C-alpha cells in the first residue's frame, strides 16, 4: 500500500512523463486497432509494416532511456551502449536461431546454417541452453549485466570519468564489433544471425506476432520509464545528480560513488539488453554492425536532441530522429543527410535543452518578459558567447 502511494506520488509529480505515458498508451491501443480492426483498403488502416516500424522506434526509445538514465542523471557518457543493446539482441537472436531447427538451408537440426557451412561439428558450449526461451530471456538481462558489471567495476573503482570513460566504452564496443565480425567467434560473422522463423511457436511473419511484439515493446518502454522515473525521483536520483555534478564532494558526504555508478550502469545495460532483444525479432537480423561505435554515438545524439536528463525527452528524441530518418531516406534518398545534419545543428542552437526543454524554455522566457516588462532588455552585450535564445542576463562565466 505504502509503495503504491509512493509510486503514485512520484508519477503524479512528473507531468511530462504522465503526458508521455498516456500518449504512448493511446498510441498502442489506436495503432493496434487501426491495424487489426480497420480493413486494409480503408485509408485509416495502419499497415503491419508501419506497426513494425513503430515497434522498432519503441525499442530505440527504450535504449535511449537507458542512456539518459546514466548520462542525464549520473553524468556517465557511454559511447558504447550499443554493445549492451547488441548483446541483448544476440541473446534473442540465438534463441530465434535455435527455433529454426531443421528449416535452415542445410536442413541440419543440430547446427545453425553458418556452422554447418563452416564445418563445425557440434554446437559450441555458449550456444547451449538457447533452445529455451526462459534461458534466453535470462541471458538477455545477464549478458549485458555481466559485461557492464565487470567493465564498470574496473572503471568506476579506478575513478575513470568524463571523456576517459566515454572513450573506453567506445573502445569496448569497437573491440566487440571486431570480435563478432570474426567467423571463428561462432556468431555468424559479418552476416550475423538472420532468417528467423518463429518465436515461442508463433510465426514471426504473421501480423498477430508483429502486433504482439510491437505491444511488448511499448509495454517494456512504459515499464522501463516508470522504473527510471522511480529511481530518479528517489533520493538515489538526487545522489546520482550529485555524483554527476560534484563527484568528489559527494564522496566527502560519505556516498560510495562507485557503487552508485555501478548499480545504475548495470541497470542501464540491462534495459539496453531488453531493447535489443525486442528489436531483433522485429527487424529480423542481428549482426556486428550493431556494435559499431557510430551507432552508439548516434544514440547519444537522440538523447541530446530530446533533452538530456528528462527521461521522456530521450524517448521523444529517439522516436523523432528515427522517424525523421525513415521519412527523409524515403522522400529524399539523395539528400536526406543534409536535412538530418541541419536538424541536429538547429536543435542544438535553438533548443539548448532539447525538444523536451522547449516547453520550459518558452515558460521561462515569458516569466522573464513579465519581470522585466516596461524596460527594454539590453541584448548586445556578450551575446556572442550565448545561444541566441539563451537568457540574456545569464552569467557568461558558467563553464
Amino acid at each position, binding site marked *: 500500500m505504502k509503495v503504491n502511494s509512493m509510486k503514485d506520488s512520484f508519477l503524479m509529480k512528473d507531468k511530462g512523463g504522465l503526458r508521455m505515458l498516456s500518449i504512448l498508451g493511446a498510441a498502442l491501443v489506436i495503432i493496434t486497432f487501426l491495424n487489426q480492426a480497420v480493413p486494409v483498403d480503408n485509408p485509416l488502416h495502419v499497415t503491419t509494416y508501419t506497426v513494425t516500424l513503430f515497434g522498432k522506434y519503441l525499442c530505440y526509445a527504450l535504449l535511449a532511456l537507458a542512456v539518459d538514465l546514466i548520462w542525464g542523471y549520473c553524468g556517465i557518457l557511454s559511447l558504447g551502449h550499443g554493445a549492451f543493446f547488441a548483446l541483448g539482441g544476440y541473446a534473442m537472436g540465438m534463441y530465434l536461431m535455435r527455433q529454426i531447427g531443421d528449416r535452415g538451408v542445410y536442413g541440419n537440426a543440430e547446427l545453425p546454417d553458418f556452422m554447418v557451412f563452416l564445418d563445425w561439428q557440434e554446437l559450441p558450449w555458449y550456444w547451449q541452453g538457447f533452445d529455451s526461451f526462459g534461458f534466453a530471456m535470462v541471458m538477455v538481462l545477464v549478458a549485458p549485466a555481466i559485461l557492464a558489471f565487470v567493465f564498470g567495476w574496473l572503471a568506476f573503482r579506478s575513478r575513470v570519468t568524463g571523456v576517459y570513460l566515454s572513450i573506453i566504452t567506445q573502445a569496448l564496443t569497437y573491440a566487440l564489433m571486431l570480435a563478432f565480425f570474426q567467423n571463428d567467434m561462432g556468431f555468424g560473422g559479418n552476416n550475423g544471425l538472420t532468417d528467423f522463423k518463429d518465436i515461442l511457436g508463433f510465426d514471426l511473419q504473421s501480423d498477430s506476432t508483429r502486433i504482439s511484439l510491437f505491444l511488448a515493446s511499448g509495454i517494456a518502454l512504459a515499464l522501463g520509464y516508470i522504473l527510471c522515473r522511480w529511481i530518479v525521483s*528517489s533520493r538515489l536520483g538526487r545522489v546520482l*545528480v*550529485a555524483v554527476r555534478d560534484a563527484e568528489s*564532494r*559527494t*564522496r*566527502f558526504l*560519505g556516498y560510495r560513488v562507485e*557503487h552508485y555508478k555501478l548499480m545504475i550502469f548495470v541497470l542501464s545495460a540491462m534495459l539496453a539488453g531488453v531493447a535489443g532483444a525486442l528489436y531483433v525479432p522485429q527487424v529480423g537480423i542481428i549482426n556486428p554492425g550493431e556494435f559499431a561505435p557510430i551507432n552508439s554515438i548516434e544514440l547519444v545524439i537522440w538523447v541530446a536532441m530530446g533533452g538530456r536528463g528528462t527521461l521522456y525527452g530521450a524517448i521523444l528524441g529517439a522516436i523523432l530522429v528515427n522517424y525523421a530518418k525513415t521519412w527523409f531516406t524515403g522522400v529524399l534518398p539523395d539528400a536526406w543527410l543534409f536535412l538530418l545534419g541541419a536538424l541536429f545543428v538547429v536543435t542544438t542552437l535553438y533548443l539548448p535543452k532539447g525538444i523536451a526543454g522547449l516547453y520550459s524554455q518558452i515558460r521561462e522566457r515569458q516569466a522573464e518578459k513579465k519581470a522585466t516588462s516596461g524596460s527594454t532588455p539590453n541584448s548586445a552585450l556578450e551575446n556572442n558567447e550565448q545561444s541566441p535564445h539563451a537568457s540574456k542576463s545569464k552569467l557568461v562565466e558558467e563553464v
Partner: protein
Amino acid sequence: MTDKHIPDDTILYLNGVSVSFDGFKAINGLSLVLKEGELRAVIGPNGAGKSTMMDIITGKTRPDVGDVYFKGEIDLTQHDEADIANLGIGRKFQKPSVIETLTVWENLELALAGNRTPLQSLFFKLTKENHKQLTDMAAYINLDDQKETVAGDISHGQKQWLEIGMLLLQEPEVLLVDEPAAGMTDEETFKTADLLRDVAKSRSVIVVEHDMEFVKALDCKVTVLHEGSVLSEGTLDAVQNDEQVIEVYLGR
C-alpha cells in the same frame, strides 16, 4: 604500527606526516593531537599547509610518510574519502563547495546523517523528524526563503553558510572547518564562532581562519603552522606575542 603511545581520549592523531608535490614539501613532519571534544584553531601564513592537512585527514591526499589515526586505532591512510566521511569526519572546504545543480533543500537532505548505500537511498523516505531538522537548519543558515533555489544561484557567502549547514547535518564526530568566516560580515563571523563553540561541546572541531577577531572569539588552543609544520602552539595571546608568528604571519 601502533606501537607509539596514543592517549585514550585522542580522537585524531597525526605524527610525522609529510607530503610533497613535485618536490615541494607542503607538509613537513607535521604532528598534531586532537582530543575528544576539543576545539582547536589552526592559523598560519598562506600556503602553510593548513588545507593540505585537512586533505590528508579526509583522505583526499595520501601522505608520503607519517601516521594518521582516528580514535586511536583506525589508520585513516588506509581509507578513502567516503569511508572517512562515514567514520565520522566531516569537512567544510575553503572554497565553498556545494552541489550547484541541486536546490538548497536537496543539498541539506543529502547531507543528512543516515545510511548511504544505493538501495537505502532508493527506498529512503524523509520522516517528520528529518523534515523538521532540515527546516530548522535552513532557517538557521538564513536560507529559508531560498530553500528551492538551486545552490549554484546563491551568493558566495550564502554558499559558505549552506556548506556549514550541511556539515552540521552530517553529525560527524570531528568537524574540519576551513575558513568559515571568509566573506562574512563581522556579525556573522561572531555568530559562526558561537556556533562552533557550541558544537565543540559534544564533538571535536578544527577550525582554520585568518580572522584574529574570530579566533579570539573561539577562545581555544591555537596551533600555528608554517611551512608544513607546527611553528607555535598555545593560547591566542601567547601565540600572538610570539616573535616568529608576528614575523611570518601577523605582521607589524
